[in-house]
């Protein structure tokens, strides 16, 4: 990658995060739940956070649903901890925008849907995939201690439960890691490949 191509920094720089989290143990949470379709009428990327999980957060009269983790004052922080197969269904990037806009920087799960994972990475939200056992451990700890602290270190690719020191490695491609650490994005990179793309087109013609 050539540095000068990436001055605009469309993506936020991501290094380490120490934060409490919000648990959402439900499995197969689809992007229609993360951001219902009727909120997709905007033409900008901003403001989706207020409608994040709208139909789970609010009842039919728009009153907060008591007990839903995002309405529970016990829980707060930049880390969303979710059940397996998080983000399945629609490709709407609005789901990643809503999560980011709400204030989450990291989503932890034992399994992510493909398109959602890409959308997160393209918006400075780090998907951290852990084993089902480790995920169960996190949920168990949060049940006892709702303000449990977690450490996410992108450079080391580790997720650590601060109180117990238990730590796990997570996968991310070197390319995507470099993008997040430096605030680069794929579009900057692809624009730097314009010459190669044109050559490719000529060869096929």
């Amino acid at each position, binding site marked *: 990658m050539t540095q000068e191509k990436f001055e605009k920094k469309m993506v936020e720089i991501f290094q380490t995060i120490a934060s409490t989290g919000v648990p959402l143990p439900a*499995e197969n949470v689809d992007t*229609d739940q993360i951001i219902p379709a009727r909120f*997709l009428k905007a033409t900008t*990327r901003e403001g989706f956070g207020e409608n994040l999980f709208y139909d789970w957060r609010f009842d039919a009269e728009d009153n907060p649903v008591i007990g839903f983790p995002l309405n529970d004052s016990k829980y707060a922080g930049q880390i969303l901890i979710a059940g397996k197969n998080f983000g399945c*269904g629609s*490709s709407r990037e609005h789901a990643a925008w809503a999560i980011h806009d709400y204030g989450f920087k990291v989503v932890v799960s034992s399994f992510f*849907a493909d398109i959602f994972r890409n959308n997160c990475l393209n918006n400075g939200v780090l998907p951290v995939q852990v084993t089902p056992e480790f995920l169960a451990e996190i949920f168990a700890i949060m049940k006892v201690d709702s303000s449990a602290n977690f450490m996410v270190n992108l450079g080391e690719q580790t997720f650590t439960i601060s109180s117990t020191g238990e730590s796990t490695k997570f996968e991310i491609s070197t*390319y995507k890691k470099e993008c997040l650490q430096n605030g680069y994005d794929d579009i900057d990179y*692809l624009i730097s490949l314009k010459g*190669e793309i044109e050559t490719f087109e000529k060869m096929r013609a």
Partner: protein
Amino acid sequence: MIKLEVVKAETLFDKIWDAHVVSKIDGGPSALYIDCHLIHEVTSPQAFAGIEKRGISVFRPDRTVATADHNVPTIDQHLPIKDKLSRHQVDKLTENCKNHRIELYGLGHPHQGIVHVVGPQLGLTQPGMTIVCGDSHTSTHGAFGAIAFGIGTSEVEMVLATQCIMQPKPQKMRIVVNGELNKGVTAKDLVLHIIAEVSVGGATGYFIEYAGSAIENLSMEGRMTVCNMSIEMGARGGLIAPDQTTFDYVLGRKNSPKGENFEKAVENWRELKTDEGATFDKELIFDAANILPMLTYGTNPGMGVKIGSVIPELSAIKPTEQESYAKALDYMGFNAGEQLIDKPIDYVFVGSCTNGRIEDLREVAEFVKGKKKADNITAWIVPGSKQVEQQAIEEGIVDVLEEAGFRMRQPGCSACLAMNDDKIPSGKYAVSTSNRNFEGRQGPGSRTLLASPLTAAAVAITGKIVDPREV
């Protein structure tokens, strides 16, 4: 020892993918060239804003085609859209296409319709292509032997800017369906059966190739229905090797190669198949004889059963999944272990990129001919495109539907995702030919049961859940 020269056996997926890699980052994604980019009003405005912010123009405007579908009304399309936000979004698409010289099939245009119905019927979709769109059901186009998949808006921006996206290569899965489908069993039942077996996340990380005689015997419409729902088991996409059925469908369409060029194209397309001995990361084999009309009872497309059977008991569900399972049944107002047959239904929706094609409407019309819609049913029949609508009028399908008490609406995504006014009211049951039964998918509080057009037609006539083979 004798040394044999080994020619590497390749899968169809590998052949197409490798032919589109512009460059690859070691241990990372590839820059993949995109032949055809489809856009619509909901997932494109932020991408256009992005390239404008960067001060760049669309790199290959002739490789992007636009239509308005997700957010359009399905009645009175000649009038201005009432909902201000929807109107603004559709207007924004028009403005962006004009500014960036992109072909647009907007409201009122004879080619307007659901993006995945429009692409194939205009011959934009061709074997061997890479096709993307900011919509997860882009997998539909895989029916033609193309690598087609849904992308996010940042990726839409990448394609607008460079005609490429950065993609990690998925793993490969082959799903073989041997034998012949039973009478009254459709492509929709076939794919709902597969999803129920594989589960809603079971194909995540994979690109599927569908094969076997039951797949080969499907029409192009049927193949599109199958590939369309690949995403519902988490797959990146699904494709089917092109054959004579494919070539016959592509021939003579607006954007298809013409004359000698078509012959030449077919010659190349015939090479698009998985070589004998090529390996897949995972292979599943089904027997078509075991597939019967299907219906979903829960809140993801993997929660489906044969219409005549009962909703699984809680004890049959993995302990870790029991809580989600109970929550889904509670949302649906169903109990574990109970029969679905004879349950009263309120709404029937026939349409969407899964089952909104002419063949689907023909099937419904043939079934309801000479019968009357049940009084308790509100039925919405929404053609996938203006072209489908026109064909339905010409074939007399609309007359048959009207005689049976139905009224056809105008093209769009409609109640599949209920972005427009076509919302199923809270607590009501809808038997729907669409692709997703998520909580609130068809409107807040709506309860969706996914089925084939044939089953939907049977339910519309009887007013309750019924096996279409028994009506």
